[in-house]
């Protein structure tokens, strides 16, 4: 294997029969002998489901692992907040599910914009994940007979979602975290908490380490390794308001992009249909209400004659259950992009509810009548409590008010079948890569992908890289590391020295507004052009007028945020450019110019059945394409009617 950058975007997936690709690939890959593994140093950045699982598993295999996270503990990565569940093709409910079925639903749910080989592998290992998690002691929900329970999620007509009440992400992450801490105890993994990666160090075009800021004392330092694994999540916080944690950011991925890693499909953003609506200008984030609620909750708005009335007083005949009306076969369980767009249409038609008119109802009256309050509480109790704490309203008595919010980003750093980016030695896992969800991710598939990448893919493919690549010894005294530390310090210095008039959050809020209005749930040539004009202006103002207070050598949240917003200002422009370039609608990317008479997304398979991957260069960006070849699935118009 050569150590040339993969700028031709070769997927490196084996050809031939889909069902046996991964098996054949595992056989063909190079391996590292157990005694040699401890000679390799691996850096894993991020301790969510993907990063935590990867660091733990690589440690178990015997590699020397250094694991980094910005949080104060590896247990707090944002995977912890995933509520609803994790998909697997176990077919325990005997409703006809299979690996192929999960593969097919995921390809279709992604609106035919993902790579068949990657998605099939994901479906294949989904069952191993459930087995592994149960072996770790993850307390999934069970039936009285002692076996595991399943529920349904959007975009599927089977029940394949395993769950732990509304805290599935928490339980899975604590499983990965415990496996990770076990390796810390054994000395195979060394933890670096409250460290932020601020640069990727490359030597001769190969990833050989990272530069970090110690968030406690501000120290900037470098770490050398034989390979870098990035699992730093998505970039939804670019919109300022999203369901992401406050600390979620794109900086690690973006700095890799600026060191040569191509960024794929940045415009694919998932707007989640069921979130608690915005209540005021001070709003700092939005809270998701799990998609699982759509198993029993019914989405509606009042008909014309009952507008403005108290929802509990509106009779059945005066309610428009619009998802059930428009999509009778999937009803309230249509995929997220479809449900979000329909909510937006209701609000645009002036049929929204609540004081702001920017919300729709999610109603449990029918489920409480059918199952009883206790059964509904057993399934969704913590979500109902969360809703009540935030809104001050009791959802057992009055319907929830919900509205779509930015939730997940399908785009990310481009990776091949081995999860390696265009930079040799840099592997990217989980939400940070682009590979498995196409233009729209189905519910309960993020947890599946994170753990698949971390437990069952990277342990093999990283061995292949290390076993087939001749790497010269390099340490932190190499010029490339010194230059990286200097560059990080120089940027920090520059930010402190601006001493402008506006806060970091002022700029972030302004960027979020531009993005939500112009690059949000629906986009057009006009809005995208506007964003491409406005964002660079805002970026220029940021570098002249931001105020970063306080010192560098202390815990300082403002300098942390300033670096992240500086990167969001660049990524925002790229998102708009990517959305403008993609002259079609697909999944979460809805271009007003490209829709059917029924307002459904209209794909253009002739011209856009490809991945758009952006190379960063001195002129800005160059767009490259990886053609998507569908050998097994026939491309049809997605229909949930």
């Amino acid at each position, binding site marked *: 294997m050569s150590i040339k950058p993969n700028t031709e975007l070769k997927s490196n997936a084996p050809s031939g029969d889909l069902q046996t690709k991964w098996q054949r690939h595992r056989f063909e890959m190079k391996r590292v002998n157990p005694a040699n593994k401890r000679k390799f140093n691996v850096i894993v950045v991020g301790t969510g489901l993907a990063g935590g699982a990867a660091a733990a*598993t690589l440690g178990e295999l015997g590699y020397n692992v250094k694991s980094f996270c910005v*949080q*104060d*503990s*590896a*247990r*707090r990565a*944002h995977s*912890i*907040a995933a509520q609803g569940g994790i998909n697997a093709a176990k077919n325990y409910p005997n409703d006809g599910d299979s690996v192929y079925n999960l593969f097919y639903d995921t390809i279709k749910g992604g609106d035919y914009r993902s790579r068949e080989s990657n998605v099939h592998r994901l479906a294949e290992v989904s069952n*191993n994940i*459930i*087995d*592994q998690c*149960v*072996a*770790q*002691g993850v*307390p999934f929900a*069970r039936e*009285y007979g*002692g*076996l595991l329970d399943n529920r349904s999620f959007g975009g599927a007509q089977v029940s394949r979602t395993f769950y*732990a009440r509304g*805290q599935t*992400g*928490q*339980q899975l992450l604590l499983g990965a975290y*415990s496996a990770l*801490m*076990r390796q810390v*105890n054994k000395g195979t993994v060394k*933890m670096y*908490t409250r460290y932020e990666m601020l640069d990727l160090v490359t030597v001769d075009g190969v990833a050989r380490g990272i530069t970090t800021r110690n968030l406690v004392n501000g120290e900037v330092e470098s770490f050398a390794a034989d390979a870098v694994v990035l699992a730093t999540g998505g970039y939804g916080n670019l919109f300022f308001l999203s369901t992401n*944690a406050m600390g979620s950011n794109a900086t690690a991925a973006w700095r890799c992009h600026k060191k040569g890693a191509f960024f794929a499909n940045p415009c694919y953003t998932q707007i989640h249909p069921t979130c*608690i609506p915005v*209540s*005021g200008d*001070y*709003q*700092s984030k939005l*809270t*998701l209400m799990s998609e699982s609620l759509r198993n029993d909750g019914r989405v509606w708005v009042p008909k014309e004659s009952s507008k403005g009335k108290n929802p509990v007083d509106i009779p059945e005949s005066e309610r428009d259950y619009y998802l059930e009306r428009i999509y009778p076969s999937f009803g309230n369980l249509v995929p997220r992009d479809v449900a979000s767009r329909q909510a937006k249409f209701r609000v645009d038609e002036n049929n929204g509810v*609540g*004081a*702001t008119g*920017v919300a729709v109802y999610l109603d449990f009256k029918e489920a409480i009548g059918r199952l009883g309050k206790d059964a509904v509480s057993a399934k969704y109790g913590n979500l109902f*409590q*969360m809703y009540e*704490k*935030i809104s*001050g309203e009791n959802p057992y008595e009055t319907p929830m008010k919900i509205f779509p919010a930015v939730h997940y980003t399908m785009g990310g750093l481009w990776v091949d079948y081995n999860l390696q980016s265009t930079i040799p030695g840099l592997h990217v896992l989980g939400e940070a890569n682009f590979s498995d969800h196409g233009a729209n991710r189905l519910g309960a598939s993020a947890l599946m992908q994170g753990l698949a990448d971390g437990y069952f893919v990277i342990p093999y493919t990283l061995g292949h890289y290390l076993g087939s690549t001749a790497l010269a010894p390099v340490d932190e005294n190499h010029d490339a590391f010194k230059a990286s530390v200097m560059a990080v310090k120089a940027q920090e210095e520059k930010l402190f020295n601006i001493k402008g008039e506006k*806060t970091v*959050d*002022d700029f972030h809020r302004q960027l979020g507004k531009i993005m939500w209005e112009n690059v949000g749930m629906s986009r057009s040539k006009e809005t995208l052009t506007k964003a491409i004009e406005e964002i660079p202006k805002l970026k220029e103002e940021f570098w002249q007028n931001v105020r970063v*207070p306080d010192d560098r050598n*202390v*815990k300082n*949240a*403002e300098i942390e945020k300033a670096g992240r917003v500086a990167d969001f200002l660049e990524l925002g422009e790229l998102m708009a450019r990517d959305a403008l370039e993609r002259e079609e609608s697909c999944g979460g990317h809805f271009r007003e110019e490209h829709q059917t008479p029924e307002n459904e997304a209209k794909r253009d398979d002739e011209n856009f059945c490809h991945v758009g991957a952006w190379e960063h260069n001195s002129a800005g960006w160059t767009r490259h394409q990886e053609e998507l070849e569908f050998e097994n699935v026939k491309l049809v118009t997605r229909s949930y009617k």
Partner: protein
Amino acid sequence: MGNDNSTEMTIHLKIWKQDGPGKKGEFISHEAKGLSSEMSFLEMLDVVNEDLVRLNQRPIEFDHDCREGICGTCSMVINGEAHGPDKEITTCQLHMRKFKDGDTITVEPFRAKAFPIIRDLVVDRSSFDRVIESGGYVSVNTGGAQDANSLPINKPDSDLAFEAATCIGCGACVASCKNASASLFVSAKLAHLSFLPQGKIEQDARTLAMVRQMDTEGFGACTNTEACEAACPKGISVENISRMNRQFLKASIKER
């Protein structure tokens, strides 16, 4: 939405400010005006911090992340109570509607020997990680697990394991305990694993290791005040502490 009932508020804050570990700290006063009753407590602090930056002062450092009560990052004692005056919530889930216009609110960090202060309201809880590291897991490597349904687990036990496993590791139990004991945190992890057949095999070794690590970290002893359960945002039961004590006694007898 929320602003159906929004009212404007002024709050007098007394906040702990401490420049760094080992430095002398003090309460500073700040008047926060033009707040909304619909804000969360942390959104109120965001507003205060942005005002401080505009006034060319340094903002107050505090830990926070998910802002939906699950990551366990936020850690403040508000008016003497860990996570403030409301039951079963974290600080990020506390809303200003719980206070009255004109109230004085005191905000301090979680205080405990095993949680040294980093800056202002930010504390170092890595002692919790070291307790988990000492044995809070089932010793299985990735790969080779049997089919998940070949190990049926009765629902009542599985539910009890889940209840204990919902601990978010925030440390409110420690902050609210007069002895700064971590018994609720440690016993919740032990209960989660010992209710399940997967965790039974290593139960004795795990119990001994985690309890001893807890002592090594400088957490105090439990004297059954049950303040921890009252402060726990997830309502973890003190029954877990009794279980832990029984299991520790059994394991230490067997060890001899």
